[in-house]
């Protein structure tokens, strides 16, 4: 298990007592957890449990209502810290892909580095081609999202996030909108990333992926962390009744 020792090289993320409300509705009710460098964390829970909102708070797409987030040794506070710099360092993959429909796959991937990092276009596009090859889409570089399947669009979205060289990747239900027979295309890419040592937080109900890749599983319900442990602990010996209920439903599905 030398691999595991290498993986634990200190914390990249610390979340302390995070709350998020929409109007009077409190969606996250005080969540705390930490994440090591190269750690792979899977977030699970029934719909409405707050897991997507939690992930969206981490890069300030949803500003948290209260609580502390320390990322890469920097306390993140609106105003106090540059939110844009934070977002450069955190890649995000959305359930609905959100690829840019007016741009080709190549332009989708190259745009961030060109606009945000001010990279010369030629360099950005050269790297974008490498990234597209990495997600198995070299032959689709000049196609627009409208001509692509959901699985392909999501892989473009992953390449787009990787182009910014993020220190942490967030995946918000990356396979929930993809046809069943294409889900493996996306999961394969995510497994490859994990194998390369990418630090990631994944909201997913894909048990197979969680078992294969996750170092730790967090189970959420009603805005709180209910249970946390290794995939073996949580999936095979869930301590909480709510976790057991949820897992029995997922297994049936």
């Amino acid at each position: 298990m030398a691999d595991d020792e290498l993986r634990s090289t200190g914390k990249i993320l610390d979340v302390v007592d995070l709350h998020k409300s929409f109007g009077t509705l409190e969606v996250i009710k005080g969540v705390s957890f930490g994440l090591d460098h190269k750690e792979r964390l899977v977030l699970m829970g029934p719909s409405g449990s707050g897991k997507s909102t939690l992930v969206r708070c981490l890069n300030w797409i949803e500003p948290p209502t209260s609580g502390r987030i320390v990322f890469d040794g920097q306390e993140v506070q609106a105003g106090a810290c540059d939110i844009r710099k934070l977002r450069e360092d955190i890649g995000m993959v959305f359930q609905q892909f959100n690829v840019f429909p007016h741009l080709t796959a190549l332009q989708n991937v190259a745009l961030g580095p060109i606009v945000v990092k001010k990279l010369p276009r030629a360099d950005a596009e050269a790297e974008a081609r490498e990234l597209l090859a990495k997600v198995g889409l070299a032959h689709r570089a000049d196609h627009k999202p409208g001509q692509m399947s959901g699985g392909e669009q999501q892989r473009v979205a992953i390449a787009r996030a990787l182009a910014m060289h993020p220190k942490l990747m967030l995946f918000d239900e990356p396979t929930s909108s993809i046809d069943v027979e294409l889900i493996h295309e996306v999961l394969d890419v995510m497994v490859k990333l994990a194998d390369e040592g990418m630090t990631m937080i994944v909201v997913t109900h894909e048990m197979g992926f969680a078992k294969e890749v996750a170092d730790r599983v967090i189970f959420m319900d009603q805005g709180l962390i209910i249970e946390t442990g290794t995939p073996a602990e949580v999936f095979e010996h869930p301590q909480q009744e709510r976790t057991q209920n949820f897992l029995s439903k997922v297994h049936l599905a």
Partner: protein
Amino acid sequence: MAIDVRLIWEKLPFLLGGAWTTFSLTCVSMVFATVAGLIVGLLNMFGGRVLGTITRVYIEAVRGTPALLLILIVYYALPRIGLNFPQFPAAAVSLAVCYAAYIAEVFRSAVESIPMGQTEAAYSLGMSRMQSLRYIILPQTFRRVLPPLANEFAALIKDTSLVAFISMEDLLFRSKMVSAATYDYFSPLVGAALIYLVMTLPIMQWSRNLEKKVD
């Protein structure tokens, strides 16, 4: 009450001269209205509270009053406070001010029709609000505004006929001149209608084709 084709043919050059006034006035007004409408629309959405309110008041005021009123104010009322416009500029300014409000709303609804996820994806790459507007939102907006803009253009061709009230010799005014001179109220007006259709129908068809392309 037969239509006198010979009369229409005879007066066609005169009517086409009026149609040219109609067309050039439409084009000039449309260019200014589109540029102003884009600026007003963007200020309304992203200009903050004060500019947002000012532009909203402007949009609602224009939408809630007749275009003709604006034309009369610019041509007859503004000279009383020392602002003199010749006919054509007066007509172009009033129509542009009027259509800028409609076009601002066209831009606003197009921007709002872009899914929130596009902005979120841009932000998650570290883009600023300006960058996400420039590289992600506006390029997608421009495709969506073309069909409604073409519709506004066709509507403007028809609304230019209001300038007859300030005695500008556009297509409608000239056809009425022919009627008055010949006591034939039918043929010149039908002739004018046909010329209006020649201008508006292709544009409306073009707009429909664009709409199909966007979908």
